[in-house]
């Protein structure tokens, strides 16, 4: 335990650095960090490849495909690509690079993967309702004092605590 926590950054230092990065991002671009928007753009991109007509008819995604630019040419897509590169660099420095399925010893990899996928599915749906996920709506939105950020943050963490009891076997 002790040794492992040493390899990670002190959480307050990590938070401070993340806050500074967020502030710098606000200062340069006028908007915060994000993640789920990039996946949304990927959905738009695949749809415009496979069935442009369906995309046009889609009342929701259709509005993100205007402007004539390729749907992957957006700020968030580049940012999320950067996230993966940055995580890779950090993982390489700390020797944490490894293909694996991380799960509690009490469950199988298969179960973990199924739940990860279901969780992702719900997160995808929820992030569209809330117009952003934990990084876009909750973190960046709250830092910029947006009311929606606080509503989203409280409901994400509040409901996760509520549901935690039902899924405790997955984790502890």
């Amino acid at each position, binding site marked *: 335990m002790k040794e492992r926590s040493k390899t990670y950054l002190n959480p307050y230092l990590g938070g401070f650095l993340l806050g500074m990065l967020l502030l710098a991002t606000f200062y340069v671009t006028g908007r915060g960090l994000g*993640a789920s928007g990039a996946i949304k753009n990927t959905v738009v991109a695949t749809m415009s490849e496979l069935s442009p007509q369906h995309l046009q008819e889609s009342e929701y995604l259709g509005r993100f495909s205007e402007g004539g630019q390729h749907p992957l040419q957006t700020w968030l897509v580049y940012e999320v690509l950067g996230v993966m590169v940055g995580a890779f660099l950090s993982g390489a420095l700390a020797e944490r690079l490894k293909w694996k399925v991380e799960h509690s010893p009490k469950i199988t990899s298969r179960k973990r993967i199924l739940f990860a996928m279901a969780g992702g599915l719900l997160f995808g749906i929820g992030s569209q309702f809330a117009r952003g996920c934990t990084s876009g*709506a909750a973190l960046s939105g709250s830092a910029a004092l947006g009311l929606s950020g606080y509503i989203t943050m409280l409901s994400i963490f509040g409901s996760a605590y509520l549901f935690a009891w039902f899924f405790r076997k997955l984790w502890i």
Partner: protein
Amino acid sequence: MMQYFKHIVAGAIILMLGLGLVLLPEKQKHRETSPRQICQELSQQERYITVDEVADRLVQKDPTLLLADLRTPEEFERFSLPGAINIPVDKVLDAESDPFLNRKEFDVVFYCNDGTQSELAWQLRKRMLKTNTRILKGGLDQWIYDIFLAPMPDEAAAEGSFERYRFRQAVRTYLSGGSRPFTDSDVAPAPEPAPKPKQTIPLKPKAAQPKAEEGC
């Protein structure tokens, strides 16, 4: 206690910074666009939108166009542009108007009878740093002249003006369901033509179509 020394110092620093924010006078409240800057922008034309552009976007059913009628409710009742909402000019600074006027996803266009009140409203909101509004150039007078009267350009007119004429005729047909052309008597009291294309919309937020906002 010693082991927490660093944490306590860091906590005290951020607490002090926070306290500083409480004690600092609220900057935003006093901030406004300087009269000099407004004066500079008054010479520019960017705050105007032409009758033709509005008409085009109405025909296209552009969901990002939000027309705000600054006249009195009675005048609004009598005649208004399709889809407009009524915000009498004395209410443009009210907080209850902000859900309509202060939305980044809308192009808010002010209009009134001749454009004077729109100018006023635009300047006031500009001064309050609420800048996302534009003015229908010439107001309803111009609208009626261009769309309903739509004078036929003379032979020597510049290229393109016939095209514009036809476009305006099409808009008129579209908006009034192919009614007779308006005569002078309709516009005698300029802003109150016969209650022909009457279309009022109850005052409620047009939140139904937010423009593409990047989520998260």
